[in-house]
């Protein structure tokens, strides 16, 4: 099953490689991994999207907790949560495509953030499924380039991951 694991870790050189190395050394899946400092610059927040059986997920959480730089770990799937991902898509915007792209963008509540003679760059935020649906909805030949951040997640209501 797909799980989103959030963790807070010391914002130190090499911390990311400890997490990435753990996943590769123990053969765990990483679908995506995002990391950036938090409002407290000494802490980084990482979101890892992974998948595995309950036993594997249990081991992943335990192994992450074992890393000396990791302060807190939360399996977001243990409760209610929100996930968002940002995607930038550069598409062909010539002829009929120009109107079509604008329409698709509106339907998915995206924004065109760069306009050039033959291209639009669309910014789209949402769950991974929504971004997938957008890509599937586009004419494949119109897509020039895509870039996705990977998911970020946060618990709903008073589910808070903080030191």
């Amino acid at each position, binding site marked *: 099953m797909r799980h989103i694991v959030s963790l807070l870790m010391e914002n130190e050189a*090499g911390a990311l490689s400890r997490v990435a190395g753990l996943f590769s050394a123990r053969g765990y899946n990483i679908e995506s991994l995002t990391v950036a400092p938090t409002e407290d610059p000494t802490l980084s927040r990482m979101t890892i999207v992974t998948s595995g059986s309950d036993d594997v997920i249990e081991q992943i959480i335990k192994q992450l*907790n074992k890393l*000396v730089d990791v302060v807190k770990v939360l399996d977001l799937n243990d409760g209610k949560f929100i996930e968002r991902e940002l995607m930038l898509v550069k598409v062909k915007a010539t002829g009929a495509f120009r109107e079509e792209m604008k329409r698709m963008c509106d339907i998915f509540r995206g924004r065109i953030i760069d306009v050039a003679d033959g291209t639009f760059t669309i910014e789209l935020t949402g769950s991974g499924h929504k971004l997938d649906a957008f890509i599937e909805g586009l004419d494949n030949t119109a897509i020039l380039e895509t870039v996705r951040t990977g998911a970020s997640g946060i618990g709903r209501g008073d589910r808070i991951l903080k030191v």
Partner: protein
Amino acid sequence: MAETTHPQQITGAEIVIRCLEQENVKFVFGYPGGAVLHIYDAIYKQGHFKHILVRHEQAAVHAADAFSRTTGEVGVALVTSGPGATNAITGIATAYMDSIPLVVISGQVPVPAIGLDAFQEVDMVGVTRPCVKHNFLVKDVKDIAITLKKAFYIAKTGRPGPVVVDIPKDITAHLADFVYPESVEMRSYNPVTKGHSGQIKKAVKLLLEAKRPMVYTGGGVVLGDASELLVKLVKALGVPVTNTLMGLGGFPSTDKQFLGMLGMHGTYEANMAMQDCDVLLAVGARFDDRVIGNTDHFYSKDRTIIHVDIDPSSISKRVKVHVPIVGDVKSVLAEMNELVALEKPTQSPALKAWWTQIESWRGKLCLDYNNNNGLIKPQYVIEKLWEVTKGDAYVTSDVGQHQMWAAQYYKFDKPRRWINSGGLGTMGVGLPYAMGCQFADPTAQVACVTGEGSIQMNIQELSTCKQYSLPIKVILLNNRYLGMVRQWQEFFYENRYSESYMDSLPDFVKLAESYGHVGMQITKPEDVEGALKEAFDMKSRFVFMDFITDQKENVFPMIPNGKGLSEMILAEDL
């Protein structure tokens, strides 16, 4: 403008020395080189600890590791950058697999040179990441003291392990005030100590009600200094107990309640009891693949498993357990003892029947061997070694058949006496391990049980042993084969002995003599005991004993790879 120097400021190298002094380090095992020259200069000027010059960095780490296994203190090794650092890796990985607390200080190229492929540069933090508990690269002289404080703290607390501190050369020349922190707090590192009392109660209840109870303990009992508490508990409950390879000595081997080692080369009675018990208490052990080879086969019988371990990730990793107890084994066993004492258990009829069953398994005499072919049997050498040393020696071993025979036939009654590489299975540890033991306990009897393959992997340390006059006794079980490889080839590869024969062996007697030691070769069974006595009587000499043993002897019992605990091959089966 030049920075004004505070009169009390000292160099980074001197700070390193002062930190080691503050940690009460008695021995540093190391090898000098360019990046650590400032530190070596500071060592020259200090008088707090003894530096032991090895002949290869791998041996420095192994010796520090054995020093720790013997004393319970943090072992310290010092190596230079690049090749010095990479030579240390096998030692670090060995310690990591067996949870041995070490601080390994490695030199690094100067900070401005890092990343420029400088001479003798290697990314030590990157290279060691998968085989350390934690590691640090210090980039500011002001951080040396706090980093070393953290390194010692992390190494010895929780589930212990090696910590690498990589120190660039320029930092060791910079000046700073020396302040060693009294204590260290890390928000990201708070190891659990006390076990959950509700779970402990549940565990004790299960053990008291069990019909076929069994206790299985590992290296955690030895490392956690919990042997006495284990003995107390096992005695109070009147239950059988087995130890893993790493746990030997955790329970006295000569005690009636001890069923011997379990696992791939464990005894018949220990493995059968593991398979057939109804309540299993696992303490400081991790159900690894050499203990429970085939987990499905293990699951084919129902039993309730209680697992006490300080590392949550060791629980339910390979084998699902029912009553997990995360905590320091010493604290958990103490609590269990208190609860058991309140109950004053008596032997139930079921437990009595269980013991009758166990005695019938024991009656198989699975460790009996044929000693009548005129050749020296390796098992016989170990039995005699046990007799001659009165069961009180530190025994180190390398890896292979000789290791298993030492584990099976030397009856360890005390913890921290059996020093071997269980997890990583590192050939070549035996001699440097013996060095570490002998430094820790200079007047003790130290025997290095080895094979002619393993001993040659760190043979250069004969020179270190000479330099420091270490009276180690090498017990070489020389069968001219990489014995364990040959045994597997005999069983599973139709006797195709691919590259397992050791040709062109040195004359070990002359070799030992050339290093200034005593060399002996023993070829007849009737000479074994006398030779051992003679060697151990030479209390101040290093004696290299080359026992020419039966080439075709195999280790039994044996659970073939992938088979279950009750599917052992016994010597009598063949």
